[in-house]
């Protein structure tokens, strides 16, 4: 009689994978309406439906996906791509912050892991410093695969629902409400409010700029305004510069 083959632990027996799924749940619930709105937006998109749906596979980034499928009707190819690229700039920050956690991981994981680096994965990945490298890798992949598969199911559900809803319901307005809501949820300090207000204001003034150029102008103005507000508020909260008091350069 041969000894039983050693198998990988099932999900039920693997506390790390179970922990990952439990941690995913509260972060995934707020993404459900977004996925449904995206599904509806795909049905309203000027892109062929299958190609718009394929953003789930090739892009897997809610805000960039929604921008891509929503702007297809009005923007040029270049504006559409540039807008999605600017939206994704925050991922550079995530990537920089997560890099130390990846330095001792196998090469294949350093290439595969970033594909799953959505907002929620950044929050989860940074939240478990106590896990060993191999446990963290399993935790990260479990969460990433969960988000990817759930996202695909829900967006498809939204697509099916969207096809059945008449255009008089004006669901094309939902993405604008959704983006505004995400901004409100994401802004946590005064420079963030400045960035959002200036971004929206400049975009509004520049709405007649050809090729939807107002989005990029608003984005650039908003980032600059947020940065300046951050520096100014930071300086004022630390009091006057010592150089002004005694004439010596503290650096």
């Amino acid at each position, binding site marked *: 009689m041969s000894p039983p083959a050693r198998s990988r632990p099932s999900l039920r027996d693997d506390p790390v994978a179970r922990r990952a799924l439990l941690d995913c749940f509260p972060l995934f619930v707020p993404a459900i309406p977004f996925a449904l709105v995206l599904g509806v937006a795909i049905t309203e998109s000027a892109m062929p439906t299958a190609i718009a749906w394929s953003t789930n596979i090739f892009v897997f980034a809610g805000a960039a996906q929604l921008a891509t499928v929503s702007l297809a009707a009005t923007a040029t190819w270049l504006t559409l791509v540039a807008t999605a690229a600017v939206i994704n700039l925050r991922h550079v920050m995530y990537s920089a912050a997560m890099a130390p956690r990846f330095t001792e991981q196998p090469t294949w994981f350093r290439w595969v892991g970033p594909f799953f680096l959505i907002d929620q994965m950044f929050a989860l990945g940074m939240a478990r410093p106590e896990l060993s490298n191999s446990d963290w890798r399993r935790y990260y992949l479990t969460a990433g695969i969960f988000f990817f598969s759930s996202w695909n199911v829900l967006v498809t559900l939204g697509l099916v629902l969207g096809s059945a809803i008449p255009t008089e319901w004006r669901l094309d307005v939902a993405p604008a409400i959704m983006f505004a809501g995400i901004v409100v949820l*994401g802004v946590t300090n005064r420079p963030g409010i400045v960035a959002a207000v200036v971004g929206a204001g400049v975009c509004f003034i520049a709405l007649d700029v050809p090729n939807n150029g107002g989005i990029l102008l608003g984005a650039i103005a*908003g980032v600059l305004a947020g940065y300046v507000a951050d520096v100014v508020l930071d300086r004022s909260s630390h009091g006057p510069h010592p150089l002004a008091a005694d004439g010596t350069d503290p650096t």
Partner: protein
Amino acid sequence: MSSFAAASAVLVVGLITYASRAGMIVFLADRPVPTNVTRALRYVGPAVLSALSVNLLAGGDGIGGVTAIESAAVVAGIVTVAATRNLIASIAVGMTTLWLLLWLT
């Protein structure tokens, strides 16, 4: 938008998305990002998403495309999410406001 233009846009956006996520992890893992850059990147999200919301409101028709009814729906959504921190409630209140105003006018 033609199928070719749409497919190529999706692929390029996908590549850019992956590059922005993988760049620091795969290629620049040992180099620190300048503090000023990190500081500015924090404001990319609010700036670009608020601009995008305004642009989608206009629907590609310039300033003339922004109607009072749609703006009221977005404002109702903003007030709701600020009060409840709940996106589902925001969409529900925003769309209900839109439907009510469309029905009344």
